[in-house]
């Protein structure tokens, strides 16, 4: 080390002496990035035409001798556009370098710090603001869908403001795969926070306020988050003001939304036909069918009503955003306000958000900088019942309701009883149009995301950062079921209110070190962090209102059911350390270690150590590469680490305890919570080998990564003997492997003056496999987790189609024999997996003069989806539900070869001994592969001379469509919103599909 220091000293001495000979006068200044205002170290400052030059220091400062006559200074930095400045008679020249979008030189936010992308050894993907600007997407996770390699994002509901599943590098955990979300240093809530509709805490953050989104994918990148890092980390940085500028911009857009590909249902005449056949086949008189469903041959008995037409409509949406940002040398601010309203394509479903953000940064002294970020939002949502075979869910009942039973009496305009001919005989007598219109299902979500941080520069090499962050969500959900809806009449009207408060805070302190010793660049960070998450919930149900316009709790006559009162919390604390070293920007090494504890972990295992190592090599800097002119950059990366995931443990799950539960005759019940005081984090061993490249003068660039995550100590609810009275106990057992290949390519295909065509492509191939199960067994039973299979797969019995002899459905038994039923779970087999084999996105951007066309396609494939709707809608007219039109191709005569069986009222081919398949037939499974034009947008920037003549700096107008075209073989409404997408469990009945949106708007910069 001494020798390095000595060399450094000598080099500096030499430079000083060289400049001494030519010395005339000195120019000083500071080089910062135009994108983020951060200082740029190691920028080459060169006097043009000479060998005189100097690098900038860690703060971006330089000092260079120039001749009296001045000259031209060249500022060169990899990844930034080279700038030349005529010195003339200036002595201070501050320079802002603009990033070169085509290169690898961007700044990347890593855990607790910022690094140049060039210097990163981890796998980090970045999405910048301009990629998601003006997309009417409610939340950033929806906006980046398909845009990041290795990150699979799927809507779990088409509900406006609804939740999404974001999975980084596949499914690592049987318990929970939610990544960690950090917004401006604050760990924030994700997922649903209120109960009356699918909702998304992340939608409280206006995507227009986001500057960058970084996804930390591998161990080297994420290990600094220790026990929470195994599912990856999403780091979001909001926009800041820039020095010495003022930017005022407004944007507005409006449009409409329509449903996509709804089921083609029978009309009254068609339904009457199949019902008549079903009755007659079952030995019942046709007249009974006519009485209920009308006579197909007598139009006067048919009274057609299109339920789907009444339930689905064209919804409208608009958004308005305004922002003001700027500042002085010392103080910068960013202020924004947004208003957004989106209706759904289903009636009585909408989402509204108001958001405000104020980010302020102030340099109090030379050494101290204070930053405050404050985001406040309110969401208001009207929700639909979805994701279940619910008679009061519109995505079930809009299709199953009988077409011969009009929802409304055309004479009076009043709602009819359902079904008109025999009220109560179908769907619990629930008139879905009436129910959805009269019921109120509303969420209010108020959120504050805020942080305050101090940055103190102890010396050029040392900086201390202290941050305190707060993430607060206060929600109220209301469900009103007025007595006007017949099914609720006996309640006298019912109101349910649900109040939840989530309050998370975290504080961290870091000591950062950054210094170059000649060709040796060293940086390190040492820090500590505390986090606490509190959650409270209270609910109450009341019934009996003397007047149905009264809705307050105090106006009801009685309470109903038990109120819910929840008060819980968990804590985490950790210390961490990371060191980075590089030699000549050629060889990089980094090591991270974090020691993390959580109150969720069992007393025996409360604290754990997580770590990673990474190395990279940039051969582009080697001499042997200097003569080639294909590669502009080339970097090889490897990393290995051990990370944790503790999301799968409940707050006090490791504490043996007793809870209250249910009363009998006035005595409150009590139950034992069986606990394992050894449970702790899932241990994920993550390997990554990657390559970053830029070729052909940066025309093509991107990265290629191979990853493998072996996650052991799975938090698995290990089944116990049922006779113990406990279903299972959480323990750390089993191993899951998620591995894959990620490819990202950015290219400029054509750059011919006025016309430019750029592409962005990413694809991820993934494989998921259970490596080890509790107790070392090969399988947990038929249809259950099995070694060698993915964590999620479909288990079904092989459907053999319709017997041409008699029109009955047939299945294959495990031994290959045909049967009409009597199937057990052992007759099933793995038919496929809901986990996609590959997914990705392709964006093409065409620019001609001021006109830009973006076409973004998102795709996934190789997954198999089970569609529960087929149970209801393809039952050959056997029951009460309306049927898809294709059921008219039913079996009629012996010898008919058809896919639709013989209609038979009641469904069960009566006769003693008839039995049902115990598991799902493959008839309900179909290929979930799809590609979708997620976004197509046309933007026109008004000519700048015209714009400046009217006193503006930029005006663009745009039109766009979301989800315009979908290609798929899926036998259902929407291949994107399917149950058990990724690891999502739950019902595959009546999902809320996404819609097709069309908007147009204008964006003005003053």
């Amino acid at each position, binding site marked *: 080390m001494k020798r390095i*220091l000595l060399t450094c000293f000598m080099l500096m001495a030499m430079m000083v002496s060289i400049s001494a000979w030519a010395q005339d006068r000195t120019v000083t200044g500071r080089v910062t990035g135009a994108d983020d205002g951060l200082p740029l170290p190691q920028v080459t400052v060169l006097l043009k035409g000479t060998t005189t030059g100097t690098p900038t220091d860690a703060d971006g400062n330089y000092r260079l001798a120039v001749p009296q006559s001045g000259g031209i200074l060249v500022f060169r930095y990899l990844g930034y556009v080279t700038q030349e400045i005529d010195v003339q008679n200036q002595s201070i020249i501050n320079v802002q370098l603009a990033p070169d979008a085509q290169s690898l030189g961007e700044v990347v936010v890593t855990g607790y710090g910022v690094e140049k992308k060039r210097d990163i050894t981890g796998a980090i993907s970045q999405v910048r603001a301009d990629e998601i600007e003006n997309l009417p997407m409610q939340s950033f996770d929806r906006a980046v869908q398909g845009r990041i390699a290795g990150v699979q994002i799927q809507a779990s509901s088409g509900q406006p403001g609804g939740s999404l599943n974001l999975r980084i590098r596949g499914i690592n955990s049987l318990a929970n795969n939610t990544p960690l979300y950090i917004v401006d240093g604050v760990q924030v809530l994700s997922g649903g926070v209120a109960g009356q509709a699918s909702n998304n805490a992340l939608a409280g953050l206006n995507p227009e306020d986001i500057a960058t989104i970084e996804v930390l994918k591998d161990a080297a990148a994420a290990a600094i988050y220790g026990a929470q890092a195994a599912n990856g980390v999403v780091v979001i940085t909001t926009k800041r003001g820039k020095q010495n500028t003022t930017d005022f911009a407004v944007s507005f857009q409006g449009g409409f939304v329509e449903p996509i590909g709804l089921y083609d249902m029978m009309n009254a005449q068609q339904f009457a036909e199949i019902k008549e056949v079903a009755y007659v086949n079952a030995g019942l008189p046709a007249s009974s069918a006519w009485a209920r469903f009308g006579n197909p041959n007598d139009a006067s008995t048919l009274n057609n009503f299109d339920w789907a037409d009444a339930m689905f409509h064209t919804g409208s949406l608009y958004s308005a955003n305004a922002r003001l940002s700027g500042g002085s040398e010392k103080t910068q601010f960013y202020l924004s306000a947004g208003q957004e309203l989106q209706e759904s394509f289903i009636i009585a479903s909408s989402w509204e958000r108001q958001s405000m953000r104020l980010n302020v940064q102030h340099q109090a002294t030379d050494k101290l900088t204070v930053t405050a970020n404050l985001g406040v939002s309110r969401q208001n949502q009207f929700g639909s019942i979805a994701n279940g075979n619910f008679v009061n869910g519109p995505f079930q009942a809009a299709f199953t309701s009988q077409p011969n039973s009009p929802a409304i009496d055309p004479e009076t305009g009043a709602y009819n009883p359902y079904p008109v001919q*025999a009220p*109560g*005989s*179908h769907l619990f*007598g629930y008139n879905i149009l009436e129910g959805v219109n009269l019921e109120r299902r509303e969420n209010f979500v108020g959120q504050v995301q805020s942080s305050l941080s101090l940055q103190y520069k102890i010396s050029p090499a040392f900086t201390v950062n202290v941050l305190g962050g707060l993430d607060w969500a206060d929600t109220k959900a209301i469900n009103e079921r007025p007595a006007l809806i017949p099914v609720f009449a*006996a309640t006298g009207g019912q109101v*349910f209110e649900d109040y939840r408060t989530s309050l998370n805070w975290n504080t961290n302190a870091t000591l950062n*070190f950054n210094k170059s010793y000649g060709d040796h660049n060293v940086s*390190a960070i*040492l820090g500590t962090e*505390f986090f606490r998450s509190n959650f409270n919930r209270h609910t109450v149900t009341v*019934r009996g209102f003397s007047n149905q316009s009264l809705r307050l709790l105090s106006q009801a006559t009685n309470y*109903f*059911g*038990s109120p819910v009162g*929840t*008060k819980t919390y968990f804590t985490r604390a950790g*210390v961490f350390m990371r060191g980075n070293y590089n030699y000549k920007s050629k060889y990089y090494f980094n090591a991270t270690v974090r*020691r993390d*504890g959580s*109150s969720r972990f069992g007393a025996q295992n409360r*604290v754990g150590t997580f770590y990673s190592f990474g190395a990279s090599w940039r051969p582009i800097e080697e001499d042997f590469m200097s003569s080639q002119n294909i590669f502009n950059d080339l970097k090889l990366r490897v990393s290995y680490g051990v990370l944790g995931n503790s999301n799968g443990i409940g707050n*006090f799950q*490791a504490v*043996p305890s*007793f*809870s*209250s539960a*249910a*009363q*009998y*005759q006035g*005595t*409150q*019940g*009590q*139950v*034992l919570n*069986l606990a394992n005081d050894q449970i702790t984090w899932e241990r994920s061993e993550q390997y990554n080998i990657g390559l970053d490249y830029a070729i052909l003068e940066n025309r093509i660039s991107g990265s290629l990564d191979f990853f493998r995550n072996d996650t052991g100590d799975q938090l698995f609810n290990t089944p116990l*003997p*049922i*006779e*113990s*009275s*406990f*279903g299972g*106990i959480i323990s750390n057992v089993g191993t899951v492997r998620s591995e894959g290949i990620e490819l990202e390519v950015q290219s400029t295909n054509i750059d011919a003056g006025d016309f430019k065509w750029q592409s962005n492509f990413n694809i991820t191939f993934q494989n998921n496999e259970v490596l080890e199960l509790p107790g070392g067994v090969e399988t*947990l*039973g038929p249809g259950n987790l099995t070694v060698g299979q993915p964590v999620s797969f479909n288990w079904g019995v092989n459907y053999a189609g319709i017997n041409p002899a008699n029109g009955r459905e047939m299945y294959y038994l495990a031994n290959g024999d045909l049967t009409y039923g*009597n199937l057990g779970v052992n007759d099933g087999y793995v038919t496929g997996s809901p986990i996609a084999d590959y997914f990705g996105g392709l964006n093409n951007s065409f620019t001609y003069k001021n006109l830009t066309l973006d076409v973004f396609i998102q795709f996934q494939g190789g997954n198999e989806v089970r569609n529960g709707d087929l149970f209801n809608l393809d039952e050959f007219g056997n029951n009460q539900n309306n049927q898809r039109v294709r059921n008219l191709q039913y079996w009629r005569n012996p010898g008919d070869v058809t896919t639709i069986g013989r209609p038979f009222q*009641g*469904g*069960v081919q*009566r006769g*003693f*001994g*008839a*039995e049902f398949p*115990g598991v799902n037939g493959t008839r309900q499974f179909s290929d979930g592969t799809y590609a979708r034009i997620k976004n197509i947008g046309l933007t026109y920037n008004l000519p700048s001379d015209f714009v400046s003549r009217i006193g503006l700096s930029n005006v663009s107008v745009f039109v766009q469509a979301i989800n315009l075209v979908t290609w798929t073989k899926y036998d259902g409404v929407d291949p994107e919103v399917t149950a058990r997408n990724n690891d999502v469990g739950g019902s595959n009945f009546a999902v809320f599909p996404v819609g097709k949106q069309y908007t147009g708007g204008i964006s003005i910069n003053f």
Partner: protein
Amino acid sequence: MKKVFSIYILIAFLGFTACEDLEFLEPKPEDRLTREIALGDLNGVAGHVARGYHRLHSNFGWYGQNFMLNGDALADNVDLLNNTGRYVGQLVNAARTTYNIYGAAYQIINDENIALEVLPELASEDPARAQLLEGQAKFARALAYFDLARVYGYEPGQEVGGFNLAVAITPGAVLGTSNIEEWPRNTNVEVYTQIKSDLQDAINLLPAEGAASSSPYLPSRTAAKAFLARVNLYEGSYATAAQLAEEVMAETGATLTTAANHLASWATAQHPEAIFSLNISSLDWGTVTGVNSSLATITNTNDPSRGLNSAQGVLRASVELLASFEAGDIRRDLWVNPTGPDLWEGRKWNGELGGFREHIPIMRYSEILLIAAEGRARSGNDAAGLAHVNMLRANRGLTASTATGGALTTLILDERRKEFVLEGQRWFDLKRLGLAIPKAAAQGGVALPYTDFRVLANIPDGALSNNTLLTQNPGY
């Protein structure tokens, strides 16, 4: 440089060691109790006892609904009214579509076992209360084992192919993982012995009717005795069954309904015949529990006038049941046909407490009367048996019978069919006697032989896969 490293190492060391015993990471739940507090007094014990009773009705696979109706659907008493997918399998005796109370029963058993485990050390706090709780715990445990035994095993003496396994008797409370092991199925005789021992204890421990509470919603000494009578009937100890039943009739305050008030009795909150009944409070249900899962929603169609809005109306009387009523039988009038000429709905479960809710009688006076009748008739005392059955007939609008011998026992079985329809007894009455299960013509009309494997329910797959000592019932 060295100094820098030294500082880092020092800070790192301090930080890492400080983390180890951080008070901040100690979980301090406010929403639950430690064992010391939870099981530190009789209130905690009472909580476990109560939890078991709540489970008996909150589980809709059990007395909340299925158990009360399966016995009719699996046999010949009912037919489908509206096809909502429910009871369709039971009506045709589809394999595996039968009773499933396995998990819930063992939960109740452990609720009560926890109470029984800690009671001895807490008894000094209030010996009378401890005695009451012990009696209640044993009563509930006996009920759980009895239902397990009759669902999953043959009654003693009625085994098919010598298969005599019932269910596993767990030895004690599971209070931690160390108490958990795999237990094999015990024989039916062993389980019956356990049930009778619990009930005998309950008889000794529980207060007389009215002493602790004037309601039948918690068991009294008389209720325990009534239950023991039922158990004796099932195992064929007819004389004992009759003896116990007659004692109950003498002791109980419950009264036999008459032809005049029988119909109305089903719409009263507390059934006058109830010796033991499950109480459902408005606190116990969710907002759609009634319309989704209650007894009344299955057996009634939409009837806003009685608060049964959108009732599902799944089951109606079978043609055969209706044909079995003699002229004048008041119980025939429990069946009405508001939605169509053949659509006969029962009016036993009326949800009279509002929103489909009602208390559920589990043991009624008329059952005791018929146990006494059958017990006497099958133990050689036809005269006493006939007297008992005629007492019921007189109160149901029927003339006295003079049957004896086989005709008398057949008459008693027929009376049970008509008296307890929609109370889940029919299937078990046929099964305990080793009789074939008749089926309605609408279900094909071919009887299920007693030797058919479906007479026993299947042990759930989940139980088998987690307890290697269990054996599945034959035929599954």
